[in-house]
């Protein structure tokens, strides 16, 4: 009897257990990610507000209101420019860093072991470090500029309408370039040495080897890194919110920050949700194009 139950139990486990393994993640993502997404899109068609109980459907009103909202268009433009500039620069500098880390020179192991530290510390701490360095008179950047004779440039770099945006870019670069470098390096190590030997025999120089051997071989990781960082950068809220709050005078305002303010400062969830939905649509278009392109390339 005992044994029979045990066998039956085992049969049950072996045929269904695999579904139990993935069920918790599906449920959590379903309730707390997929449902909120649908509910968020629905909210964008209502006048939901944190300060009042009822909500009403108002059709596309939130969206038509956005069309006339200059700050929205400005933030959208900033978001797109920021994402393109940041990911492009991270990619280029990441490659350079990876190339350098691949060289066998004294001290490199130590360098490799500490370089990713910037990726692990909280963004809030990163922002404070850079805000501190950007302070007028007492910040290191201004102290240094004064030392080399550019004292008249002294200013709060996050507070200047011309330099605030570049400094937001710098924050993103600071955090992620080492991650790109280390990831590319790992992929480079996987390229068989014989490929380079073959290229040498064909008379390829250093640049040609890099261009025609290294790059194609690490193509996969390049695509993955760029894809996730486009999503992460476009969705990133912390850097801008904590460093400048979108200012000065909206000079650094990006969509996530504007959505956040609409929702949690003006409490108009409906308005915020409509902008969030537009962000989602943009990312979905990007994602579909990415799938199409990567699918097509795999076929050829």
């Amino acid at each position, binding site marked *: 009897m005992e044994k029979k139950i045990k066998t039956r139990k085992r049969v049950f*486990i072996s045929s269904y*257990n*695999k579904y139990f*393994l*993935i069920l918790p*993640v*599906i449920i*959590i*993502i379903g*309730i*707390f*990610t*997929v449902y909120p*997404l649908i*509910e*968020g*899109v629905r*909210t964008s068609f209502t006048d939901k507000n944190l300060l009042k109980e009822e909500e009403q459907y108002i059709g596309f009103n939130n969206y038509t209101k956005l069309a006339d909202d200059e700050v929205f268009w400005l933030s959208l433009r900033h978001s797109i420019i920021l994402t393109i500039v940041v990911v492009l620069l991270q990619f280029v500098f990441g490659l*350079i860093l990876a190339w*350098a880390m691949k*060289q066998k*020179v004294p001290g*490199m192991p130590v*360098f490799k072991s500490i*370089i*990713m*530290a*910037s990726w*692990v*510390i*909280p*963004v*809030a*701490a990163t922002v404070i470090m*850079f805000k*501190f*360095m950007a302070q007028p008179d007492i910040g*290191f950047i*201004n*102290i240094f500029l*004064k030392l080399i004779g550019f004292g008249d440039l002294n200013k709060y770099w996050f507070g200047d309408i011309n330099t605030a945006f570049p400094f937001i870019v710098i924050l993103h670069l600071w955090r992620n*370039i*080492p991650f790109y470098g*280390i*990831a590319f390096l*790992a992929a480079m190590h996987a390229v068989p040495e014989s490929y380079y030997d073959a290229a040498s025999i064909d008379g390829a120089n*250093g640049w040609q080897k890099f261009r025609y051997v290294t790059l194609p071989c690490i193509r*996969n*990781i390049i695509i993955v890194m760029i894809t996730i960082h486009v999503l992460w950068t476009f*969705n990133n*809220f*912390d850097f801008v*919110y904590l460093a400048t709050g979108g200012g000065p005078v909206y000079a650094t305002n990006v*969509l*996530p920050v504007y959505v956040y303010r609409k929702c*949690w400062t003006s409490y108009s969830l409906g308005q915020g*949700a409509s902008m969030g939905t537009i*962000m*989602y649509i943009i*990312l979905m278009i990007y994602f579909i194009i990415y799938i199409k392109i990567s699918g097509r390339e795999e076929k050829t």
Partner: protein
Amino acid sequence: MKKGVIIRIGITYLVVIVSLVFFIFPMLWIIYSSFRTQPSIFTGEIISSVKEYTLENYKTILSVTDFVTYFINSFKIAIAVTLSSLIFSISAAYGLSRFRIRGKNVIILGIFSTQMFPIVLLIIPLYLIITSFGLLDTVIGVVIGHLILVLPFSVWMLKGYFDSIPVDIDDSAKVDGCNILRTLFYIIMPIAAPGVMVVGFFSFIVSWGDFLIISIINQSQRTATLTLVIQRLSAALLIRWGEVAAATTLTIIPTIILFSFVQRRLVEGLTAGALKE
């Protein structure tokens, strides 16, 4: 030829030095400043006289504010997120890596595509859901919020890791009479330990560093974390930079310590999913 090698080494060290200045110096600068008195920071000098170096900032932060409470909050939340993320993502990744599951590719793509959901959009309903569950301003509420940040990437990373372990190992365990859970815990886990460690580390630092979720779910001291506190300190009207620097240093130290344990494995784990394909 010889000249080429010298140029190559020269450029390499140039990249190394520029990188150290750019990536490491800001951290050293804030740690250094945390040991300086407020007046010495305000002189705008890089080095001050010996008696201007002090532990006063740390004393103030630890005694005057509730810093310790926030530290414990951050720790509690991050540990809970790490453990639950590991349990859920290990089982899901193992299931997806090893078994024929109907709609598997759709599930994998679905989990990955949640990365493109704008979090600022998700937190609108999430706030209402968590409120209706009565979890606002509770550790569980925050942990749920952090889980949705870390789970997709964790599952994806671990699946890549499990995929790189030969299935033969599972099969031989099965022949020896191990069921799924036994195989997973006694056979696969020890082999996948580096990957598991990386996922745990990733979950910890995401939770430890989160600002967005906590700023919505937190309502009182009960769940306030370090990121919220250092943000408040640094947004004060009159910023006491010495104390801000001390608080920031205390916030980054735990992540740096953990990082030093896993850094060797970090790359391998983070890129396992991507390198495999």
